[in-house]
Structure formats: C-alpha cells, structure tokens
C-alpha cells in the first residue's frame, strides 16, 4: 500500500478538526468550555453553502467565519453576560444550530434537499515542498485554507505565550480575581475568546463544504465540534498538544477507510474508537492544574 492515500486522507480529516480544536483551545484557556462549537461547525457549513453562490469562495469562507462567530456571540451573551451554566448553554446552542440550519436548508433548497454541487477550492501547489516523496502532495498540494490551518498552531502558541493579551487570556482562565487586580476586564476577554473560537469552528464547517464535500448535508458536522473538545483534552490545553491530538483523531479516521479498503479482519469502528479511549486515558493521567482552573465555571 502506498503511503500517499493514507496521508492524504489523514490530512483531509485533520484540517477541520485542527481549526475547530484551535478555536476550542482559545475558548477553554479563557475558562469557557464551548459545547456550542459543534453548532458553530454546522452553522459555518451552511453559511459557506449559502455564501459561496453570491460572493464566491472567499465570501463563502467569510460567511462561515461569521456564522461561527454568531454562535460564539450567543454563547458569550449567556455565559459571560447572563452567567448561565456553560454546559447547558453550549448544549442548547448546538441543538439550536442544528434546528436552524436544517430549517434554513430546507427552506432554501426545498423539503427533500436538492443535491447541491458547489464550487470547491482548487489546490494551491507549493513548489519544492509538494515534491517531497510520499507526503509532499498530500500536505502541500491542497487548498490555501489548509495552509492557514497549519499556521494556526504556531500563531496560537505565539498569541498565548508571547503577547500580553494571550497572557491576560490565560490569567482569566486561571484566576479572574488576579486578572482583575492587574486591571484586566475578564468579561470582554472571555466573550472575545469564545467568539473568535467559535468563528474558527465555523471556518472548519466552511472547509467541510468548500474544500472537501462540495455540498451540504444536514448534520454534516458529524460530531467534529465535540471531537475538537476531546482533542483539547488529549492535547492538554497546549497548541502543540492539540496538533498531536488532531493528528491522532485524523489518522484514526483515515485508518477506517484503509481498514475497509484493505479488507483487514478488524472492525473499523474499533479503530475509530481508539482516540476516544486515549482521551479518557489522558483525563485519567492528567496531573492537577493542567486544565484551566476556571474551566466551565460561570461564577466569574
């Protein structure tokens, strides 16, 4: 078996997960467990579908970002302003997003859901790198938005550990009182973190539609927002960690195709299950103080 198809499939499945997990990392480091992320992904997918027609591919991605951000603003309103419970708010936001996207999709495209064929991003080949044998074309002959996902990890690292806003954001996720004493307003920062984080979730949805499927289907986010939350746990709340976590999930997902294609005598569901098992193990062996102290708390 050639390496290329497995790598290509892994990259394809990893990129949306990486974008969503990056968004979740941002949100969780500010202390907000964003269960609404799944809703942001599906909202981004539909917005990309609707936006690509009138405004083109860039417009489609922009619409996906905005739709994700809208879900994030809803989260921010309830979690930061009303101080509602994060788990309940996030669950409601995701269910709401599924309902709204389903209704809008049927409203626009008819009750049966016309099979759509949308324009998709053309690969942008990076010279030299794409020529690396085995993995080159899978990594570097891809839509431009993929490269943004690759860059997201160093950008997140730089933002969280090398800027004062990143420092403030992490402080808010650990000790809002200490942040407040340093003159940092926790509320706006938390709201911004969950909004930008959800926007990245929306972009992940946009990638599903505009760089991969080329069409929209109800519920096509297929749990990627939830997986992103697991990736953040597995990655122990660090940028490098979530990159590895996203790869673990991405490769496992890609493996299922390989297992099926090669006719190996194991059930592919077992392969898919492995990353979740790893996530549970990661939780079991997490030392105290790894997760942000204020995570999922609304009494800030």
């Amino acid at each position, binding site marked *: 078996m050639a390496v290329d198809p497995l790598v290509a499939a892994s990259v394809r499945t990893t990129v949306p997960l990486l974008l969503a997990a990056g968004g979740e990392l941002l949100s969780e480091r500010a202390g907000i467990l964003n269960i609404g992320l799944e809703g942001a992904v599906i909202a981004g997918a539909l917005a990309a579908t609707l936006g690509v027609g009138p405004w083109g591919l860039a417009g489609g991605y922009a619409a996906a970002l905005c739709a994700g951000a809208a879900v994030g603003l809803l989260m921010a309103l309830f979690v930061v302003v009303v101080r509602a419970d994060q788990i309940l708010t996030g669950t409601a936001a995701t269910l709401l997003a599924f309902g709204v996207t389903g209704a809008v999709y049927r409203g626009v495209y008819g009750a049966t859901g016309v099979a759509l064929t949308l324009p998709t991003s053309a690969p942008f080949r990076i010279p030299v790198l794409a020529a690396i044998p085995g993995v080159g074309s899978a990594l570097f002959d891809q839509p431009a938005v993929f490269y943004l996902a690759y860059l997201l990890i160093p950008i997140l690292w730089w933002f969280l550990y*090398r*800027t004062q806003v990143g420092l403030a954001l*992490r*402080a808010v996720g650990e000790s809002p009182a200490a942040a407040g004493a*340093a003159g940092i307003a926790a509320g706006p920062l938390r709201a911004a973190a969950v909004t930008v984080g959800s926007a990245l979730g929306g972009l992940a949805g946009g990638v599903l539609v505009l760089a991969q499927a080329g069409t929209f289907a109800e519920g096509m986010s297929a749990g990627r927002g939830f997986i992103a939350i697991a990736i953040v746990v597995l990655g122990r709340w660090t940028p490098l960690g979530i990159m590895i976590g996203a790869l673990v999930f991405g490769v496992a997902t890609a493996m299922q195709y390989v297992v099926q294609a090669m006719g190996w005598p194991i059930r592919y569901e077992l392969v898919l299950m492995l990353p979740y098992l790893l996530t549970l193990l990661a939780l079991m062996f997490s030392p105290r*103080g790894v997760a942000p102290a204020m995570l999922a708390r609304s009494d800030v």
Partner: protein
Amino acid sequence: MRQGPAVSLTGISKRFGPVVAIQDVDLELGAGRVHALLGENGAGKSTLMGVLFGLVRPDRGTIRLDGAEIAIRSPRDAVRLGVGMVQQHFANVGAFTVAENVALGGQGRYRPRVATEQVRITAQSAGLAVDPNARVADLPVEAQQRVEIVRALARGARLLILDEPTAVLAPAEAAALLAWLRQFAREGGTVVLVTHKVAEALAVADDVTVLRGGRRIASGPATGFTLSTLAAAMFPKSDGTDDATRATPPAPATGEPVLRAHGLAVRGDRGERRIVDATFSVRAGEIVGIAGVEGSGHHELLQALAGVRQPTEGILEIPGRVSFVPGDRHRDALILDAPLYENFALHGAGARTGLIGWPAMRGRTQAVMAAFDVKARSPRDTAGSLSGGNQQRFVLGRELDARPDVLVVENPTRGLDLQATASIHRRLREAAAEGAAVLVHSADLDEILALAQRIFVVHAGIVREVPPDRDGVGRAMVGAG
C-alpha cells in the same frame, strides 16, 4: 530611589446600601513614612484602602497626591499614580510563573526573558529573594507575599498598601517583612500597614490612625501612643484585650490519655514527607498547642489527627470521638449558600443513614446558636450571611455539640476581631475544662501561648514538645532550639 508620594485623603465617606462603611475620614500619608491603619474588623480599613487603590468609589471626599487633587477610578489609575497594594488574599495566578504574574496587565508583546530580567532586577534592588521562574502555586506563602510586593514595585509603586500582611506569616518571617518595610520607607517609599495587631503597629510605624465604626478615632505620630491608649481607642471596653492574651495557668492535666501517636508518618498532597516518626500522647482536659512555621508539616499533622488525612506509617490511637475545626472555614467547614441547620447536619453526615428529622435538627441548631452566641435571625439563614466571628462560633459550637473526646482546631481566630477572638478562646478553655483534649494550631504564636498548657513544635517534619515560653518555642520553630 524615587521619592514616594505624600497623599492626603480628606472627608472620605462611603455607604453600601444602608450601611455606612466610612464616614468623613481623613488620612495623611507622608513620603518616607510607615503609616499603620488600625481597627477592628468592620472598622472601615478595607473600604478606605479600597478608595485609595481604586477598588471602591467614595460617595464624598477628595484625594490629593503631592498637593494635586486626583481621581482614582480603578486599580489601573492607582498603579499609574504609583500606588501598589498587597491584598490579604493574594491576587496571583497560581499556575503562572513569577515573571508571568509580574508581567500580567501589560500591553503588546510578552517577552519572557525581559520579564524574568525585570523581576530579577526589581527583587534584587529591593532586597527581596524571589525566583522569577518558579511557579507561584509551588511557593510557600511568605514567598508568594514577596512576589506580590515585587509585582507592585515592578509596576512602579512608591506607595505600598499592605492588608494584614503578617496574618499569614510565622514570627521570624513577619519580623523580616516589617524590617523590609522600614527599609523601603527609609529609601523614600510610602507605606500603609493595615493591621489589627497593636504591638506590630507601634513597633514599625511612624504614624498611626485608628478607625472605629467607620470613623477616625485617633491619628498622629506613633510616639504619641502606647499599647493601652491604642487599645482603648480601638476597643472602648478594653477588657476584651486582656482576656484574649491572658496566659492560662498551666493546670496539670490529670485526665486519661485520649490520643496516642507512635512512630506516626504523614505525607502531603504530592506524596512528599510532611511528618516523620512522631510519638506523643494527649490527655483528656488539656489544651496542647501545635506550633510551626508555614510548610513545616503541622497542617498535615492536624489533618491526620482529625482523621481527614491517612497516616502512611505508625500507630494513631484515638478511641473516642474527634471533632475538627479546619483553618479555612469557608472552604472546609461550611457550605456558605446553605442554611445554618443544613450546615449543622454536616457533622456526622457521612455516618448517618436513613431519613433526617429536620425539625429536630433545626431545634438543635437553634440551641447551639443560643449557647454559642451566634448572631443570626434563624437557623434558616445561610452560613454566608454571617460575619466571620459568628461563622467561627457556629462551627465551633457544631463540633463541640458532638461532645468530642478530642477537638482539633486550626487557626481558630484568623481574621476575627479581638472580642470575637476572646469569645472563641473562652469556648476552647471551657471545652477542655469539660474533659475534651484540645489540640490547637495558630499562625499567631501568642495565641498558642495564651491557650496551651503544653506545646508541640513541628519543624521540618519532626514533632517535639517544648516548654511553653515564647523564646524557646520561637527558636524551636525555626529549628534553632
């Protein structure tokens, strides 16, 4: 070093709803001087300092800094004007390094190397030992306090407000801090020391102001005051002062041993050795003081004796009932949002089965509240609605209501005023007189000396009995005895 500011607060008043926190208070702070702000709990010290640090917006009054009238609307304003505050409950991020904590609140890039260097330079020039790369949560409390001071200095503070800074320190550490404050003032800095320890104020301050009931009762150079004039200003009926510090006549304990430890070893939360090979016994009816500086292992020893921490080696025999009054009543002894009767039912809740007779439980709660002078309208009031002194009397009452053979008490009067302290001390003595063995730790050595007939000192995990005199115990606590 740059000269600290001279600050004058004039006619400051603040109400919180119907409650007058401070009324028409004046305060003059001179550059190069240490100003002690004295008063009981609720006297208005924290509110007044909140006004100076921008945490509290006054209803009336003016603040002048070096003669110019200024407005301080937020801590950010205060920091910009060179005012720094070390809160009683430290405002640091435990998961961050010292350098990250100090840099917090800045703008633009965060450069770890620059931040580390800044901490090193600030700490060095101020003469404070601080490791910029240490994780703050791993540091002992006195080091965390130095971090707070370094952070204030790094942000350009030339006026330092310290709220009860010695409350969490062992005597030697407290002395070192006060000496450092004198040094800071000598170099031109301005210091406000908020305290209710009168002796400390007289020892270190140039000027003293006493607040009572939100008003300024006395103010002037420290040389114009004595212990008794200050005590009289703070407590119009100053008999409470005497009771709180009165030494117990060391009555020989004649009761049966009710607690025996042999070769006891206890480990901390991270598995580190805290107590090694401790052997002692305690008799019914005696009060034993457990002294030790922060981190010496006394905390884990008390937890082991109270049954909330499992010893790893040795034998611990306590045939009778044990009650425990933990040091952090908010975290470990009370559910603040729950009514008092439910809090009362917490004692023994783990051993109870079946249904709870709530009317009877409320009745017993009411009885304990009456017996222990807990001021609340009814057992249905939440624990969080009570003042610190009433909460502590309630916790003590609940634990004593179980008629324990052994009572383990940690920092029983932390944060309480002198009258509340005196009443807690009286209850502890009564409990011993009625036959309970009382083991008490306090961060305040004088409190231990006032209460205990025998004293065990814990130093670096070793427990040994020391004759109850201040010098001897103090030396043993720092390992010099």
